[in-house]
């Protein structure tokens, strides 16, 4: 049996401050991923904010209608598919061999 990492050692090793794991060009790629993600997020948010504002102003759809909207099962599957696509677009490069 291999040795045991003791609880006190693990707690001490965790330290009080946020650890750094990266010190390599991969850091750049990760940062790139974060930037892509942030951009995608903002594009969606900004568009949605305008859309919601317009819909509310025109009395078509209220914010509460959107918050409480319950998707149909097949619609949920499509949401999951699109979300997964985004995950792979943003994080996929990190899994490429050779990194």
């Amino acid at each position: 049996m291999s040795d045991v990492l003791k609880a006190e050692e693990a707690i001490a090793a965790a330290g009080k401050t946020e650890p750094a794991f990266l010190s390599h060009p991969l850091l750049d790629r990760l940062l790139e991923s974060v930037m892509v993600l942030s951009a995608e997020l903002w594009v969606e948010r900004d568009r949605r904010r305008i859309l919601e504002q317009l819909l509310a102003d025109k009395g078509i759809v209220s914010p509460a209608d959107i918050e409480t909207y319950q998707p149909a099962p097949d619609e949920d599957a499509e949401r999951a598919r699109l979300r997964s696509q985004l995950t792979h677009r943003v994080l996929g490069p990190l899994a490429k061999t050779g990194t």
Partner: protein
Amino acid sequence: MDRGMTGVLPRTPTLEDESYLDFMEDVRNFAIRELFPVMSQQVTAAARKAGLADDGATAPYRELGAVADPLPLVGVWKRIMRSQQQITWNKIAATLHENPAFYEAQLADAEQARPDRLHYDPEFVVPDYAKLDIHLQPGGYCNDPLAGFIFHHGTKVFYQGDNNQDELHHQFADMLLEPADGPPKRILDTGCSIGQGTTALKERFPDAEVWGVDVGLPLVRYGHKRAVDLGIDVHFAQGLAEDLQFDDGHFDSVLAYILFHEVPSRLFKPIIREAFRVLRPGGTYTVVDAPNNKAMPAPNRVWLRFDAIYNCEPYSPAFVACDLPALLEEAGFTDIQVEMTPTFLTRTTCRKP
């Protein structure tokens, strides 16, 4: 805003939280299912190149860390895993804390509706070992009154969609070993957390008196609220598995679902001793937890070490290294059986003679 339920899963307070946590669930899936296998190949190759014993499977953690940690992909994986946890917890906790009175009122209402099903002593002292922010959950299980709500939304992400309707808890409740003389009439769920297993046990054994005990008062209060909402009649109590407030021989069956790896190793024997004490002769003890006393490939040991240090799971490696069947036998249990479940967990069952 109350956005209702999806089956037995509460929807997050806002649509934004739902989308955000869904995304974090995908990130976790990606890190575990796609990034970790690539990382594993690199860790194994590096361990072999460094000449570590058994490709790192039996090398001391310090030596394995010295080989694995400099690998860039190990750093990326760790950062994604840790940040995913932090982002998830912080996001949902922040939303809930915008309106704590709303959630406190839900707990209080349930307590008022069924005061006879929730048991705690205001003088109860939480041991230091249980005060950590386990899995990085802010405030842990004991220091945030809304910990139960936070835990439920956060662990939905942790279980990667496999437990949205308590599927895993039902699976493990189904694994509870029945006494030889028939279904249990009194069942104890030790380390019950928010009581997903406790209610699943009641659903399997509708005629039984079922108790869930956990050190975290916010968790058992939430578990109680949840059971009241679901109309499932179970008891919850704040308490310690190593110091149970029940008479000798009170229970027919005791379950410990992922309890042991969250407590210091010095408590393994006292916890098993207490389970033995509160079981009647012929009673059964079922433990579902991480596999123990088994060789583990180097990449999995890298993960275990990461979890211990950077995901606040400091007690886990000592449990993984222990010999649970030997401890059960030493306490007097017999008919000890160990089997791997379809999940990442092991089921160990035994009987009190």
